């Protein structure tokens, strides 16, 4: 099959699945689920074939709309970056589909759920394959819509409906800047085709101000949930757990980082500094918030925020001059490190969410980690795979997360020591809250009725866990990552000599500090030890976490709503009241006449109307 056909097929399969389900299979949940999983499986096979066939940069374009010189087309751009992303999205996506078969087995609206998963895959794959910015924006919005659909899956819960609405609106705030950036870009370059842009800004080409890349970055701030638009992501936990895995690991939030890497050529140093700062602050802030969460999914949500902060920081740190094949060359290390971490994070975060999902369903939807406990013996597969995920995220040497996190730390070490310190502190916190959660969920005695009777989940749920655990372990080795990433792998910064040793020692020390202190701190574990022992720190962190939501709530309730009410008031008073009555006065004669015709008898109206028509026609044809 020619690569163009496979690429279009990969894009269309999930759309087809969603269309078939929503049109014909609304009430056949089981059949719908198999169609959706089948589509995900088929596209995963096609993707693997496409990624490993080595076909790259084949031309594919299809005009969508044209007005004069303004045209939008359905271009595909399939380079090494897209290939890597396609692998992550399709493989992780497929296993999440598979896991959903088990997790959503008894859901009342199963067909809607699986149609939603398919439309989510469609939207995300569109971003991955898009060859111009307008097309990215189209699918970008569709990803927002898919998340609305899936986060709000249990719409009868007010919290889920609110979370879905919040996700969509907050994303639209980011899209506001993103779209303006795209339009500006179009008017500067006359095109938004990524290849054409790369040529236009090449040596001696157009130089843009920092405004353009920063507007584009707004899109990533919304979708990748960076400060200050991060507020939707923790609430998005209201969706079913596999959806959280999909949003957090392979698709939605990764889209922001991927998009930045796509428009890397438009970046300028000032913009990159801002991006790095936003990323660092988000990473640190989210790690602080994660420490005080009681809900297993919210801990993971904040850890996602924090890890995304890492990726954004890595991107913002930018390029680095490095020894490469004996020459000194400037490499796009920011892109390399960010995509490396995106990949490994995709594996281990999907694993952690699905593992959490497996524990949650075994404990009848108990999500409070202080009411779980002792699941180690009861759920061995979940335990061991989850352990692999925890080890990967805290950066245990030898696992995927260790390599990618070290690449980012090294880049920060070379470029900016302040950022390096913040990231290292974040790593301490990461180890602390992850080990805290791991220990509370799997060790000790069960602290709740549900946890005491937990049983291991079925094959549909454990198989994805095992595969993702394997990927989380080996995903960082050059033998695996380099095959996936192609040229991109050479952009991953690699520490040499003494720097290598320093980074290794620091990251080891950091990880051990966090992990060991969490283990010791939560030994008794009946209640939140932090709350009892350090109440001041605890309440401080809680306030920190809630401050953003309260600011936004205040804005919506007090500013936006009141402004709207005020304008409405003026509308009613001035326009409806004064002006119209005034006009009515002026045209009082007309009004009186009309009122005389308003005799309340329908036939009268019709006769008046017909008479008018006849008169008009008579006059027009010259009878009168």
């Amino acid at each position, binding site marked *: 099959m020619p690569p163009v056909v496979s690429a279009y097929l990969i894009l269309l399969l999930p759309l087809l699945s969603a269309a078939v389900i929503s049109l014909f299979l609304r009430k056949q949940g089981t059949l719908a689920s198999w169609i959706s999983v089948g589509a995900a499986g088929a596209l995963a096979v096609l993707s693997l074939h496409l990624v490993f066939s080595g076909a790259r940069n084949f031309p594919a374009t299809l005009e969508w*709309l044209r007005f004069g010189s303004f045209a939008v087309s359905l271009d595909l751009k399939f380079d090494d970056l897209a290939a890597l992303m396609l692998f992550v999205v399709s493989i992780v996506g497929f296993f999440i589909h598979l896991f959903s078969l088990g997790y959503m087995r008894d859901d009342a609206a199963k067909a809607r759920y699986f149609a939603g998963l398919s439309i989510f895959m469609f939207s995300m794959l569109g971003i991955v394959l898009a060859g111009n910015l307008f097309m990215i924006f189209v699918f970008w919005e569709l990803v927002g*819509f898919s998340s*609305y659909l899936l986060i709000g899956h249990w719409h009868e819960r007010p919290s889920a409906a609110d979370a879905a609405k919040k996700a969509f609106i907050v994303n639209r705030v980011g899209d506001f800047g993103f779209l303006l950036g795209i*339009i500006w870009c179009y008017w500067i370059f006359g095109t938004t085709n990524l290849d054409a842009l790369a040529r236009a800004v090449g040596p001696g080409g157009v130089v843009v101000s920092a405004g353009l890349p920063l507007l584009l970055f707004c899109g990533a701030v919304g979708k990748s949930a960076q400060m200050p638009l991060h507020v939707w992501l923790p609430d998005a936990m209201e969706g079913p757990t596999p959806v959280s895995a999909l949003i957090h690991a392979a698709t939605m939030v990764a889209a922001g980082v991927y998009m930045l890497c796509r428009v890397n050529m438009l970046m300028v140093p000032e913009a990159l500094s801002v991006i790095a700062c936003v990323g660092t602050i988000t990473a640190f802030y989210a790690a602080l918030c994660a420490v005080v969460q009681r809900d297993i999914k919210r801990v993971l949500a904040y850890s996602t925020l924090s890890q995304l902060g890492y990726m954004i920081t890595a991107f913002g740190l930018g390029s680095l001059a490095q020894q490469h094949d004996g020459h000194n060359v400037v490499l796009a290390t920011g892109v390399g490190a960010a995509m490396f971490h995106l990949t490994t994070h995709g594996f281990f975060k999907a694993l952690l969410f699905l593992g959490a999902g497996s524990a949650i369903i075994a404990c009848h939807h108990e999500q409070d980690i202080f009411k779980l406990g002792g699941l180690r013996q009861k759920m061995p597969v979940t335990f061991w795979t989850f352990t692999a995920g925890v080890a990967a995220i805290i950066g245990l040497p030898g696992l995927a997360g260790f390599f990618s996190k070290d690449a980012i730390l090294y880049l920060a070490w070379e470029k900016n020591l302040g950022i390096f310190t913040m990231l290292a502190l974040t790593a301490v916190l990461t180890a602390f809250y992850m080990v805290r959660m791991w220990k509370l969920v799997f060790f000790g005695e069960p602290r709740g009725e549900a946890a005491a009777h937990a049983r291991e989940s079925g094959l549909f749920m454990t198989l994805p866990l095992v595969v993702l655990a394997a990927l989380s372990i080996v995903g960082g080795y050059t033998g695996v990552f380099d095959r996936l990433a192609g040229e991109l792998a050479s952009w991953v910064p690699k520490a040499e000599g003494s720097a290598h040793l320093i980074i290794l020692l620091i990251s080891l020390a950091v990880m051990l500090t966090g992990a060991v202190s969490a283990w010791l701190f939560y030994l008794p574990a009946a209640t939140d030890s932090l709350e009892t022992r350090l109440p001041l720190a605890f309440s401080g962190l809680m306030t920190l976490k809630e401050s953003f939501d309260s600011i936004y709530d205040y804005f919506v309730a007090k500013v936006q709503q009141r402004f709207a*009410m005020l304008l409405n008031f003026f509308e009613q008073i001035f326009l409806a009241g004064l002006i119209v009555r005034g006009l009515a006065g002026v045209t009082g004669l007309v009004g009186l006449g*009309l009122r005389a015709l308003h005799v309340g008898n*329908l036939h009268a109206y*019709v006769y008046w109307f017909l008479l008018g028509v006849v008169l008009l026609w008579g006059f027009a044809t010259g009878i009168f």
Partner: protein
Amino acid sequence: MTFPNALILQLAIATPLAAALVIALGLPKRFSVKLAAVAFVVPAVMALWLWSQFPAGAGARYAFTSQTSTGLDAFGISLHLGLNGIALPMFVLAGVVGAAAGLYALRSGAERLKIYLMLLLIMQGGLMGVFASIDLFFFYFFHELALIPTFIMVGTWGGRDRNYAAMKMTIYLTAGAMLSLLGLIALYVKSGADSFDLLVLRDQIAAEGLRSTWGKYIFGALMFGFGTLVSLWPLHTWAPLGYGAAPSSAAMLHAGVLKKFGLYGLIQIALPLLPDGAAHWVWVLALLAGLGNVLVIGFITIAQRDLKQMIGYSSVMHMGYCFLGIATLSLAGAGGVILLMFAHGLSVALLFMLATSVHHRTHTFELSEMGGLAQKAPVLAAFFVAGTLASIGLPGFANFWGELTIFVALWNFSPWLSAVAVGGIIISAVYGLRAAAQVFFGPPSEQVQNATAKLPFPDLEWNERLPALILLAVLFFIGFWPRALSGPVDGTLREIYPAVETRAPACSCAYR
């Protein structure tokens, strides 16, 4: 080859009018309903057929033309019909929305159903005629033919405040129509063409030009006249009130199609004939639309507590985008407006219709009394959410392409105004999703529980589902394949808009 298609065009206008006449002559009720059903659907099928037959590369030429003398040749008036790339989308829109509104009306349970259907048929016949008329006299005549039944329907079958609403609508729309008629007559007189035929006028003005001082006043009259008909801020207050009171099929046809008459007039007639006059007014138009329609009305929409009022205001807001597109005096701007008019017509008709369906089930339009209807009526919820997402400009629906094109064109006119317009996507997401959530999500409210308990089948029935499906299918089709519409539009605009574009204010987009 061309003759049958020209005949089909005439029949598309004549069928609903003839059916109305037959019903008026005393056809029994059950036959009337069947005849009306056929007469509502036939123009839609014909319009879709003509769409498929529209010649590629027609350029500025009209297709399916026919010219019939009406005995008024001395005034330069004749029934000259045909479609160009600008008229085609509106003609199709009139057919499709007419079919949906008509089918919905068949089982609306309105009292004196025969007269209701008859008025709707007259309205649809008028609408098909408006967009097929090349002669400006008939263009105006068909508009009035469609407008008058609206007043009668609002006043007779309307809901709360129907008399006040009908009165206000009549005063505003008659005044707006008068003003635009004045503009058209001035155009007729000042061009010296002695003809109401658009093509003759165009040739005459191209050859001899118009005295530019007059162009300025004529465009002003047309802008405010047509603007009132389309609810340009601050002349918009008739719209939410009128639509709030109007029976649903009348609201669907008026908000969906008839209201676009003004915008269509500006794009098809005023801009190409009076580009110099237009250049005087663009900033007035852009500021009224950008700050008034988009920002102020956007916030007012957020404050609405009544579902139908909310939809009415949101429609006023989206008309702001259309005016902004026109103010850019650019090909892309005009093209975006045509796309958005088409898309908005379908989506607002869908929303007005479904709002009535919601009312049938809950007996209220108050948002605060609703909630959780999705559990009782999942299909209704799915359609309503789809309609909402379409109207707030989600890709995959036709509306997105219209808005996007206008935003792009607007940047070249003024980046700041473009930012205001793009900010509208946040505002519309806020009110749209809030309304959808309040009606459908969460636990069922007391009102919903009480009202739906008595219904045997609370979800959408086929007579509601079919019109909704028709509207949604077209929205999706253009959402996924916008070229089907942008192709003909672009072909025509390319030939008549270069002259307009040269009058656009100097480009301010050059900063990097």
